[in-house]
């Protein structure tokens, strides 16, 4: 597609349930990023995929969070046993080799009730 696509745009889930958030990057982009945006916290880096290299998972806040990228394209961020503090907007971005510009999706607004 023309831009980074994220789905769903909104997700309301009950505490303790698992959720999956999807990101379709721009075709041909080798790098893919996940960020979490909470009020007053800016953009918190979660995980970064670059080509076939091992992902940088240093930003994942707990072992309840995981992400995978299949075939170097689509990525899924999974949050297990969701907690209320997981409520945030989850943003995905992609960029071409060299990191000269990251293009962002519209985000998934996750609400844990």
């Amino acid at each position, binding site marked *: 597609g023309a831009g980074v696509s994220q789905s769903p745009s909104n997700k309301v889930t009950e505490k303790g349930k698992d959720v999956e958030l999807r990101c379709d990057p721009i075709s041909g982009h080798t790098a893919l*990023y996940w*960020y979490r945006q909470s009020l*007053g*916290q*800016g*953009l918190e*880096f979660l995980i*970064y995929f*670059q*080509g076939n*290299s091992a992902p*940088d998972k240093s*930003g994942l806040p707990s072992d309840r969070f995981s992400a995978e990228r299949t075939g170097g394209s689509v990525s899924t961020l999974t949050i297990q046993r969701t907690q209320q503090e997981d409520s945030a907007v989850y*943003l995905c*971005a992609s960029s071409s*080799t*060299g*990191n*000269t*510009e*990251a*293009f*962002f*999706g*519209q*985000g998934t607004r996750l609400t844990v009730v």
Partner: protein
Amino acid sequence: AQSVTQLDSQVPVFEEAPVELRCNYSSSVSVYLFWYVQYPNQGLQLLLKYLSGSTLVKGINGFEAEFNKSQTSFHLRKPSVHISDTAEYFCAVSPRNQAGTALIFGKGTTLSVSS
């Protein structure tokens, strides 16, 4: 590792006034520098970037930023703001020529322009 500090969390200004949003970074390697803007209820979009060359970078909507290596700063400026500039502004860095590292963002500055 890199880090970004945006010195002002909120900047209120009147329309047609000049504005400066401050950004300082820390890095042990050379970096690329970016400013992103997020308008209300919209996604992030690139405002401008510094990769190399002239330290004064011009972006969209009349914004510009100046890279100061000695002060490790990349402040964003606009000589005359409009109501439509009301948004969240994020400064970001990434290591130059290093694959496998992510963009690191500051916590953002909310620019509120009033008439």
